[in-house]
């Protein structure tokens, strides 16, 4: 039992990160109408920024600020590319997916060739933090608490923004029907920029939480995460924000528990097999797709 609880707690920390990533991914999908496969790569590059600042200055506040700025900057930088692609007549969302795969390949190659000579990076112990509570093999680290609390705060703030503010209303209007929203005079371009900004902000937070939780990053981190984010989003139903919360958390727990009971590399397969079965049974997702 103790063993099971320990694994579930691990899974919840990891799940919180998936939830945040899927939320950012879905936001881009709903408002900017793009499949941003490279979104997790932006998060990983932001982690490199955290690491670089911490190593150079050891200033935590500066590191947090730089991480968030880098993340917002990267997301905004990609905006003209995606705007250009979506504005071409006759293209659809598939084109943005293909372009973001291209973007993802570029970022991975830059990281593996140029950043820290391609070596993985590692965060110092005072950044990662030690144990806060320990009972047998159950261990609650400071970083898992950050992941849970941070996850809850960010999700609550995001849903508040979406359902209780003007910007949120614009977002939802565009997500509902872009053309009608335009007819009603909603500034599509400005609102779309806003979504990149918020996705960037969210990405910065994810980078910080993830760097604390796993304590390292490597050029190949984003690739496996990106696949899982896309898979979670589809299992939940593309663009379904609430579904993403549930499925993201579930994936984290299933992965952790599976590692506990199944031999190494098969454990990841279990999560994928479950997701595959769900997709084959419900091609439009468990909770229904918000986007076709």
């Amino acid at each position, binding site marked *: 039992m103790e*063993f099971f609880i*320990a*694994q579930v707690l*691990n*899974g919840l*920390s*990891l799940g919180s990160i998936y939830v945040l990533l899927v939320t950012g991914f879905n936001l881009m999908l709903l408002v900017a109408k793009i499949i941003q496969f490279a979104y997790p790569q932006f998060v990983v590059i932001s982690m490199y920024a955290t690491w670089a600042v911490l190593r150079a200055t050891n200033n935590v506040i500066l590191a947090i600020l730089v991480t968030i700025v880098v993340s917002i900057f990267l997301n905004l930088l990609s905006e003209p590319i995606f705007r250009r692609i979506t504005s071409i007549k006759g293209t659809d969302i598939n084109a943005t997916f293909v372009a973001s795969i291209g973007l993802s390949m570029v970022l991975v190659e830059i990281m*593996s*060739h140029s950043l*820290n*000579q*391609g*070596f*993985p*990076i*590692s965060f*110092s*112990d005072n950044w*990662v933090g*030690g*144990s806060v509570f*320990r009972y047998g*093999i159950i*261990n609650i*680290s400071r970083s898992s608490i950050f992941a849970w609390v941070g996850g809850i705060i960010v999700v609550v703030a995001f849903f508040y923004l979406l359902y209780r503010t003007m910007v949120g209303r614009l977002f939802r209007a565009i997500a509902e029907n872009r053309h009608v929203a335009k007819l009603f005079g909603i500034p599509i371009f400005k609102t779309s920029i806003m979504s990149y900004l918020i996705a960037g902000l969210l990405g910065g937070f994810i980078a910080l939480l993830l760097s604390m*939780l*796993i*304590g*390292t990053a*490597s050029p*190949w*981190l984003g690739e*496996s*995460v990106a696949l899982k984010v896309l898979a979670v989003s589809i299992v939940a139903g593309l663009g379904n924000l609430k579904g993403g919360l549930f499925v993201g958390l579930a994936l984290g727990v299933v*992965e*952790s*528990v599976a*590692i*506990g009971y199944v*031999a*190494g*590399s098969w*454990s*990841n397969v279990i999560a994928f097999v479950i997701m595959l079965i769900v997709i084959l049974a419900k091609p439009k997702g468990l909770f229904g797709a918000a986007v076709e």
Partner: protein
Amino acid sequence: MRKYVAKFILIMLLIFAFGSMTFAQDEVAVDTWEIHFLNSVTGPIASIGEYMSWSANYAAAKINEEGGIRGKPVEIVIHDTGVQPDKGIEEMSKIVDDVLVVMGPVPEAVIMAAVPLAVRNGLFCMTSSTSYEYTVEYFPWTLSWYPPTEEKLPPVTELWAEENPEMEKVVQFVEKWAAWPGMAGAHTIGLNNKNVKVIDVEVPKDAVEFSSLVVKALAEDPDGFVLTCNPDKAGKIIKELVNRGWEEKDNILVFSSADDTALYTTGGDALNGISIYNYIDPDSENERWLNFKQEYKEDHDGKNPGSLATNYYDSVYMIKEAIEEGKLTGDPAKLAEERIKIRDYCRNVENFKGIQITWSMNEGLPTSKPIFLFEIIDGEKQLIGKSR
């Protein structure tokens, strides 16, 4: 008399002509000795590939300072295969018709894919960083720097078990990649010989987060750990073990392939006090080694050379010896014959003065090579013992 003089002159002329002919036959036909190296400098083992390239280039620079090989400079041409077999074949196909000898390929999967092409074309591959098991199939067109894994590794884990006699049960983290499962099996043999029980826990290749894995290992209630996985994963796992309260550091053993910069960057202070084994002795007093180490550190942010750092340094020097001893010319017309001369020289070299130790080869296998066991203290390795 005149007849004799004429005869004498004629004979002298003949001897001279013949002599200069053989002399011309031995003359070097190349401006630069190109040594091609099929390495993996991108992809999952890019960091290891980087320092192997570095040491090959370093050896070439030293040789050139000392006057080159038979008076001509040597140049290392790196081919990146990125650990992809088809890329390996592609790179091999570019050189297989023309070059004298090739270093690599690296690692196992690329060897198995690309070496058959070299064998078909009679080209010798200096597979100096790979276990015996994966090169023996292509003997005599390859060699192994190490004796068979199941002979060479058990003595090291036995030594480690003797150093830590309180251990009865250890968990071994095994990543199923290339030669590592075989090495894990050899670790287990040595430990079983010392009545230490071994439980394997498999490390997923694409794992990024290790708390679940470490919880699983700790639930076995072991007395120690062996890490047979990639360097940054080993670093992360040790860190996670320490975060979860593991204190007996010398009961953690890291295998040689994880002795790489990435281990130290991800493991950090958590590595303090752990054991690690390796094929090179960083405290060797050999002057060539001291220079090597110093320049390596200058180029690598103060980090010590990794486990496989000397292999291709020694390979370049071995090729140099083969060319000099066999008076090879690099002449394309004699390619096939000179390829075989290099092959036969390297596979049976006697008392080769490597950068650290002097050893001999017998039909492609080394006859005497030690393995060293260390403790890591403040990021530096301190020798505990060695096994032969």
